[in-house]
């Protein structure tokens, strides 16, 4: 092919060639990995929690001067305060349903434990980590959970207990993920499990399709979808209520909730953060992921821009430097398109070498990230796509200067000094 003299000529411009090839290699390595990380962040942010998130909000509040819960009778007192709140909220005209709940997915405040098939077994082989959602019979309607087996809670299932009480519930509902983990070979319905290494069994009465744990940190990766719903109101000096507004009435409910709660009992703390739409919980949970993804995206764009600019710059310089020999080539019979192709081909060659080095660098960088951070193996597809992108970038960048080169008139051969 035409390559041999081109390579020979490039050998005499080593510095520029090496510079651009390395720039392309680095760009490829960084952009591949960055895009991969962005992709992972995006899919992480986009995974559904299992909730019907629209029209859902969370109220977090605490009572001033509430009983500590340690004295006999305190628990009942706290429970009646909570029940009063629930009744008031449920009576609001724009409210669809309300459930007391200790946390919600993405809230990053959780109560976690373990579920085992035998009593007295702490977290070990054969049992599973799980998070607990303490709630009542309105949880399904309020959270929009999808029951895939068994039955939901009835008011008769619901108990209440003090915050520090460690007694275990007689019935629970688990997520399908947890059920499959505990009973890989058959249905979990009607089976008993032992929570937190306890000795009294809890019977599984239902399975929900999907429900994420509150924690979003990487430490929850091993049990992201293992949740246990417990039909119990927790009684403490504070309480959380999940509230589902009627469609389109979320704002109205959010504005009205403080009044309603103060109407029940003035002695409580409600601040700006106490009433949150679920959208805000989601946004806060993933703020750093989204920020990171945007930052990396910007870095990638800058890197690609700088590389393109470098190619434009070097090619323009070369076109100027070779002005005369371009004229001579034209005089000797090169068509415009031949000159254009020459510079395009030259760029393809340099980018190709750069891409090859970049392929190695990309994989190396990925292995480094896997070793020192939590990072998955970079799929080859990303690198291949990256190669296509940087090659296309090179061709795009080289086009304008190459076209300028092709417009050098042949008369330059006789005229230039």
């Amino acid at each position: 092919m035409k390559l041999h003299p081109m390579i020979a000529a490039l050998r005499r411009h080593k510095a520029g060639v090496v510079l651009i090839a390395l720039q392309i290699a680095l760009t490829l390595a960084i952009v591949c990995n960055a895009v991969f990380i962005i992709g992972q962040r995006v899919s992480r942010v986009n995974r559904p929690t299992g909730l019907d998130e629209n029209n859902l909000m969370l109220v977090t509040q605490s009572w001033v001067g509430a009983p500590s819960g340690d004295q006999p009778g305190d628990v009942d007192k706290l429970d009646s305060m909570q029940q009063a709140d629930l009744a008031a909220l449920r009576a609001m005209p724009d409210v669809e349903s309300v459930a007391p709940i200790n946390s919600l997915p993405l809230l990053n405040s959780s109560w976690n434990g373990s579920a085992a098939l035998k009593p007295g077994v702490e977290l070990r082989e054969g049992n599973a980590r799980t998070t607990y959602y303490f709630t009542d019979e309105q949880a399904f309607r309020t959270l929009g959970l999808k029951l895939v087996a068994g039955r939901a809670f009835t008011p008769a299932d619901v108990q209440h207990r003090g915050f520090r009480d460690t007694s275990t519930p007689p019935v629970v509902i688990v997520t399908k993920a947890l059920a499959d983990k505990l009973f890989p070979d058959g249905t979990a319905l009607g089976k008993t499990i032992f929570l937190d290494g306890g000795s009294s069994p809890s019977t599984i009465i239902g399975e929900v399709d999907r429900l994420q744990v509150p924690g979003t940190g990487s430490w929850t990766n091993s049990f992201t979808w293992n949740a246990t719903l417990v039909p119990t109101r927790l009684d403490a000096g504070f309480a959380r209520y999940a509230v589902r507004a009627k469609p389109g009435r979320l704002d109205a409910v959010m504005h009205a909730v403080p009044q309603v709660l103060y109407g029940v009992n003035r002695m409580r703390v409600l601040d700006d953060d106490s009433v949150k739409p679920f959208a805000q919980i989601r946004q806060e949970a993933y703020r750093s992921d989204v920020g990171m993804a945007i930052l990396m995206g910007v870095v990638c764009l800058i890197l690609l821009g700088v590389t393109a600019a470098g190619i434009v710059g070097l090619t323009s310089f070369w076109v100027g430097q070779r002005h005369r020999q371009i004229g001579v080539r034209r005089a000797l019979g090169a068509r415009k398109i031949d000159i254009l192709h020459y510079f395009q081909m030259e760029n393809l060659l340099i980018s190709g070498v750069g891409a090859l080095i970049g392929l190695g660098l990309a994989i190396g960088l990925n292995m480094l990230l896997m070793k020192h951070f939590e990072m998955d193996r970079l799929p080859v597809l990303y690198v291949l796509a990256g190669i296509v992108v940087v090659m296309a970038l090179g061709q795009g960048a080289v086009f304008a200067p190459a076209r300028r080169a092709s417009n050098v008139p042949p008369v330059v051969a006789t005229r230039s000094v």
Partner: protein
Amino acid sequence: MLKMTHLSKVYRTEVVETYALRDFNIDVKEGEFVAVTGPSGSGKTTFLTIAGLLETFTGGTYHLDGIEVSQLDDNARSKIRNEKIGFIFQAFNLIPDLNVFDNVEVPLRYRGMKAPERKQRIMDALERVGLASRAKHYPAELSGGQQQRVAIARALAGSPRLLLADEPTGNLDTQMARGVMELLEEIHREGATIVMVTHDPELAARAQRNVHIIDGQVVDLAEDPRFHAHVVEARQGKVAAE
């Protein structure tokens, strides 16, 4: 082979219009060796660039090998340059990034010739100019005379019918110039048509025919008084140089 009638070439810049050629008539027959002389700025190079399709002209007609060239598009002109014309420049114009072999190969590649044939022609051409042993050298490693011989080899390799040379010996000393001239004469004997611009009356005298250009026009050597003045000038210049 090469026929221009009433040809004119105007260079327009923002301030002035220069008539580099006006009512320019010339007819070079197949197989002729024509030397073109004339004072500096008279239009010799302009004539050669138009003859070699490196530039377009403003008026008149130009037939090259029977083809009226003003109708041709850029690609067709490139093809004719490549196949029918060999150029030899005063400044040699070798490509510094390529060695001698690759330099001679340039026009052959643009012709789309196969590698074995290219190689054969390149070696033949280099043999002709006596530089076969320097094929791997770069232009910077050669003397001026050798560089010009490489340039001639490059012009020859494609076996052009017409060889255009613009002061091919202008940058060479007398001895080297003589060598180049002998080479051109040899090529001419083998049937090529040659048009050579030169300042050197001695070299011009060795051509079959002399064409003199003054102020963008071909003048009759015997009759034009301007010519005599120029010849005197040129001789004086030559004496002064020696």
